[in-house]
């Protein structure tokens, strides 16, 4: 018994003595092995996966709430809560039958009315949900286990919408909770997922805890991402929030936590050196770095200025700043869709490829309407990804001979400022940085950032009818070849008019103690089938 084990054992004994067997969970060797301590990417500040689109909330929610369908690792929706479904021959009526015996954490059975209420709330906030809602004739509970969704026009991507892992996911909640205004937070966290949320242990900004739900009935199939059986091999999962990567790294090395979702690349060599730690890629779908320019106001309302910036942009420089020298972790991305997924294309990507021609970019800028006005570049400093990109962009614009007004601020302020449509001089903005999970960039249905509907589009408000035509073509596509053809044209149109500037594709790492087994790569840190030995 080494010193640390000894201390832990005495600590456990102390706890039992001190609390006299009260609510505080006693920590014994055995219990410690059944508790998985996980460092998530960010703080779990709120817990309503419909109300917010934050990835971290979604990741916690897949523990607590279940979905009708779930993406497997081929991004194909598979039945999860649903036992069988039927789509009428005209494509207008969908009938879903729930698996028998599903229960919520409060013991109540999962009924069809819970499903209809949950879907109704989700439809208001999700972009695909809104499309379905626009086509909806009626959404009803036929009996306790049967839900019927009647549409005015066929919606072939129905199962994709119900099973997708981009936010907000179509989680099923009890009816009374699902009746909450979609723009207000729920305040009861009862689901039918494999883990219960321990509300009393939730300290936002510090920790959250989940306990195994004994009555959860797993599917028989092997787990594959959100599809298949969700078998919990630990009794308790504790989320430990650590904003400082240095602290998280030290805690993992010291064995104070078991699994770290997003170690920064520069610390990976250090973690690799430790015999007790495994390091691997976190999500094969990776992330796409991005900055968006404001299409409404000078200088970026001129497509020539946007093209000039794209011509001068060196994705390699961004990726090195963001991820580092390990070229296995990133690649340049002359397009908008996630590399390695079926719709990936480089059509029209020449402008981002090859050696950067700064002189040509400068010539294009000179031809444009740019007259040396300052470019308001808003950069959040509290997110490593936006910060590193912002530093590179400032340098890029300087090289290009543009006048940069660098506004260093935090993610919250960026969130507010980017929503303003006023000119940059009057509180508005010229450009801001962000990133998109690769899983959200696999097709136009989940890809809000590629849409170019003008006023209704995402921040930057690109108005490119050519892009929207191809989005419609994709939704109408009958097979993969038609889909691919539409996306090729879409990619080219989007690059020609620079809907936004992609800065590259990058992968992130995850790291865990060697006594933890069963961790898989995926867009979400899936905790099922993960076990831990003492």
């Amino acid at each position, binding site marked *: 018994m080494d010193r640390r084990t000894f201390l832990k054992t005495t600590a456990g004994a102390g706890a039992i003595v*001190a609390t006299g067997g009260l609510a505080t969970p006693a920590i014994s060797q055995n219990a410690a092995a059944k508790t998985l301590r996980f460092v998530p990417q960010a703080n779990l500040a709120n817990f309503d996966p419909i109300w917010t689109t934050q990835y971290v909330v979604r990741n916690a929610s897949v523990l607590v709430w279940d979905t009708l369908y779930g993406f497997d690792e081929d991004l194909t929706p598979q039945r999860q809560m649903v036992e069988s479904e039927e789509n009428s021959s005209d494509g207008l009526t969908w009938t879903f039958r729930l698996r028998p015996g599903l229960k919520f954490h409060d013991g109540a059975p999962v009924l069809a009315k819970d499903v209809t209420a949950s879907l109704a709330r989700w439809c208001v906030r999700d972009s695909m949900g809104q499309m379905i809602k626009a086509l909806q004739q009626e959404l009803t509970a036929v009996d306790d286990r049967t839900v019927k969704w009647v549409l005015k026009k066929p919606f072939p991507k129905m199962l994709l919408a119900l099973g997708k892992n981009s936010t907000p996911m179509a989680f099923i909640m009890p009816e009374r909770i699902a009746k909450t205004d979609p723009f207000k937070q729920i305040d009861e966290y009862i689901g039918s997922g494999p883990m219960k949320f321990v509300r009393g242990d939730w300290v936002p900004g510090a920790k959250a805890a989940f306990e195994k739900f004994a009555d959860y009935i797993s599917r028989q199939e092997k787990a594959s991402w959100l599809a298949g059986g969700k078998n919990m091999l630990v009794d308790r999962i504790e989320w430990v929030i650590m904003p400082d990567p240095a602290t998280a790294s030290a805690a993992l090395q010291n064995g*104070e936590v078991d699994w770290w979702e997003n170690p920064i690349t520069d610390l990976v060599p250090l973690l690799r050196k430790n015999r007790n730690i495994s390091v691997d890629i976190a999500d094969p779908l990776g992330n796409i770095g991005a900055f968006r320019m404001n299409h409404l106001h000078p200088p970026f309302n001129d497509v020539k200025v946007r093209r000039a910036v794209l011509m001068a942009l060196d994705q390699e420089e961004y990726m090195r700043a963001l991820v580092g020298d390990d070229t296995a972790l990133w690649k340049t991305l002359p397009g908008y869709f996630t590399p390695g997924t079926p719709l990936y294309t480089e059509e029209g990507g020449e402008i981002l490829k090859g050696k950067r021609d700064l002189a040509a970019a400068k010539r294009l800028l000179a031809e444009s309407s740019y007259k040396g006005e300052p470019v308001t570049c808003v950069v959040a400093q509290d997110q490593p990804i936006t910060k590193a990109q912002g530093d590179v962009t400032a340098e890029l614009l300087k090289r290009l001979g543009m006048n940069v007004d660098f506004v260093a601020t935090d993610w919250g302020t960026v969130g507010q400022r980017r929503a303003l449509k006023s000119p940059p001089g009057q509180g508005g903005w010229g450009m801001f940085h962000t990133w998109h999970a690769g899983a959200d960039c696999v097709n136009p249905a989940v890809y809000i950032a590629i849409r170019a509907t003008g006023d209704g589009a*995402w921040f930057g408000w690109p108005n490119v009818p050519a892009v929207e035509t191809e989005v419609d073509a994709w939704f109408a596509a009958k097979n993969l070849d038609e889909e691919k053809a539409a996306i090729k044209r879409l990619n080219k149109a989007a690059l020609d008019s620079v809907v936004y500037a992609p800065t590259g594709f990058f992968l992130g790492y995850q790291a865990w103690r060697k006594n933890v087994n069963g961790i898989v790569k995926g867009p979400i840190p899936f905790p099922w089938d993960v076990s831990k030995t003492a």
Partner: protein
Amino acid sequence: MLTYVARRTLATIPVMAVVALFVFSLLFIAPGDPAAVIAGDQATPADVERIRQSLGLDRPFLVQFSDWTWRLLHFDLGRSIFTNLPVTTMIAQRVEPTLSLMVVTLLLSIVVAVPIGVLAAWKVGTWIDRAIMGFAILGFSVPVFVVGYLLAFFFALQLEWLPVQGYTPIARGLWPWLENLILPAIALGCVYIALIARITRAAMLDVLQQDYIRTARAKGLAQRPILFVHALKNASVPIVTVIGIGIALLIGGAVVTESVFAIPGLGRLTLDAILRRDYPVIQGVVLLFSFVYVLVNLAIDLLYTLLDPRIRY
């Protein structure tokens, strides 16, 4: 005496009122929109506007302020915009770690600083005095996070004596609790130790020159009783004053220390809330810290009357 206590206590009310108004208006005019943050990166501008209205953030200043004050008087600090939890609950969850850190730091600082301050005064002008005062100045000059990282590097990662981060509730046992607090307390205590040591030395020098000490010395009383019984007791007023005022340093330092050592306390709550513009939480926590500061100093003022019989009101 009673009138003094009453008067002194009543005097804290306008101070708290100023703080309340200041804190509220400060954040009211702040840029940064919690609604946008809440909505997340994929939300549309229309979503953001809906959320802003549902949170009541679109109402005029006076309406929001009077509403806020009224509820404050009922010990209702509102709900966090981000977690939807009552602010009082969030504060209650975080009080123990911060209180523990402060108490341990305070005790450590006093236990270290007062004796070395006395020693420096006793050995005034010698190399011991210079060394102690040199370290005291150094204590002011090194930022708390640098000390924190140095301590964590040597004592946690290299020597593996203590944990790097975290907090264990005292209910899990005294040692596990203390184990997590030692390094942060030293880091946070540096400035405080320096401050108290300097003031102790100064106050002691002041007292040691008084006639009655000279008399005691002349009477041949042993040095130690003179130092610790007679002199220290009379030097205690400025020392206690500085300990009280230094609470502000401790609170400010806790924000940084808790973030370096991942202690889930009020300091981190404050920092997170400010960076995220969680208005109700910022207001609650800043108000609480000011309240604690005012109360501690009120207590100390009242304590003078006990410490120094010459002070009569």
